[in-house]
Every structure is written in C-alpha cells, then in structure tokens.
C-alpha cells in the first residue's frame, strides 16, 4: 500500500517515516487525502495537539488515542493495530523521561514493520532527532513560501544544528 502524502512524497506501508513539515501541509493532507481516509487511521498525540483542532474528520476510520506520559506513548504504539499510525510529536513528552526515547523509537520501528508509521513534527528538536534514528525514511517539507514553522515552545526546546536547507529533502536511511 502506498500513499502520496504530498507532492513527491510517497509513503509505503511497512515503513517507519519521520516527517518534518508545516502544520498546514499535514492538516491538509489528513483532511483531504482520499487514501488516508480509506484505511484504519490511528492519530496519536500528547495533551496539547496543534493539529487536532484543524482536522475535520468525522469518518469512522479515524481514531485518536492520546498519551500524557512517555510510558503511555509506549503502550499506545505497542498496542496499535491500525493500518496507518500517525504520531504527532510532543516535545515535552520526554522531559524527565529521556530513558523512554529508545524504547518508543523501537516500538515505532516494530509497528512500522506492518503498518505505515508517520512520526510528525512541525520543527526539529532533540527528542525528535533521537526518535527518528530508527526511521526508515526522513522527509522534510517546507512551505511554498520557503518558511518553516517556529519551534514549539516547551520548557526545554532544542534547535539542532543550523538552519535547514530550504528545498524539499528526502533522506533515505537504510
């Protein structure tokens, strides 16, 4: 099963994909993408989601499960039996629970053997870059005007390296 998330970005089932993209792009994809609407879709997020309020899905195949702790996130990912598992990254999730990053990353990879797993963030931070280490593929989408979303505010938010290149990039990681 393949899904075209956005122009030039095709995701395959049986992969764990990390996606960095503006919120508008992702919300538009979730709202209007016919393929995403066909399959059993699990949306995972933390307490404060930046995407949920923009989503207009009332279809029965769109389910949500929230994680308020890193341990809950681990449980949710392990128990996911959906065709598409979408995880909206919460930068504060691993505050005080850094030890859970590797298990969660591993669980995403495990689920990604069968399902199509998308780990999403509007902007890079340290926990996300650690989580995506076991991803099969990493995608980065910039807005048409070349802008990037501002980093999410959190008690500790990190910016990795310098500014990211403005073009669409796909990093294939074996």
């Amino acid at each position: 099963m393949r899904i075209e998330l956005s122009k030039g970005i095709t995701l395959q089932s049986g992969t764990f994909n990390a996606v960095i993209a503006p919120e508008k792009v992702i919300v538009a994809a979730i709202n209007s993408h016919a393929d995403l609407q066909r399959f059993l879709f699990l949306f995972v997020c933390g307490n404060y989601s930046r995407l949920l309020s923009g989503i207009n899905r009332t279809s029965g195949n769109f389910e949500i499960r929230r994680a308020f702790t890193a341990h809950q996130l681990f449980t949710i990912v392990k128990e996911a039996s959906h065709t598409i598992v979408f995880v909206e990254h919460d930068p504060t999730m691993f505050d005080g629970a850094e030890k859970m990053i590797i298990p969660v990353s591993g669980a995403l990879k495990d689920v990604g053997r069968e399902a199509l797993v998308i780990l999403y963030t509007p902007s890079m931070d340290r926990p996300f870059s650690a989580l995506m280490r076991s991803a099969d593929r990493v995608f980065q989408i910039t807005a048409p005007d070349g802008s990037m979303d501002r980093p999410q505010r959190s008690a500790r938010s990190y910016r990795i390296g310098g500014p990211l290149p403005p073009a669409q990039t796909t990093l294939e990681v074996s």
Partner: protein
Amino acid sequence: MGRSFTSIRQGVKSTADHWARSSRALKKEDQPYGEKLVKLAKKHSSEAFYGCDDPLEAAVFSVLIEMIKKQEQPEQEKNDVDP
C-alpha cells in the same frame, strides 16, 4: 490536563476573526453588516458550547438565534399592544 482541542470560545473567536477579515473585502455600504455578523457570531458562543463541538457550528447557531429573534420581535410587539 485534557483540552487537546481549542475551546469552542476560542474557535468561535477565530471564526469571527476570519469573518471580520472577509468583511473588509465587502463594499463600503455592506461592511456594517459584516461587523454585525461578527458580533452575532460571538454573542451566544458560551451557550452554543453546551451542545456544539464544532466552532463553526456554534458561530452559525449564534447568528441564526439572533436572526430568528429579530424576525419575530416585530410580531411580539404587535401582540403586546393588543389588549
């Protein structure tokens, strides 16, 4: 904890802001109606919250209530005058 969705109040305000913006594109003589629409959208947002989860639904509910009131009030006044 909880509150993963923006509140209805905030959602209605956001919708009203969109409508205010759109109103600016109206002809000058139509703009006052746009302003009125924005006010009406917010007027009953706290009550709409009880049954509506969707901010747009709540904004429309609010406007419609006021419109129905306006329509029926002239009737009411007529009735009050009757003995």
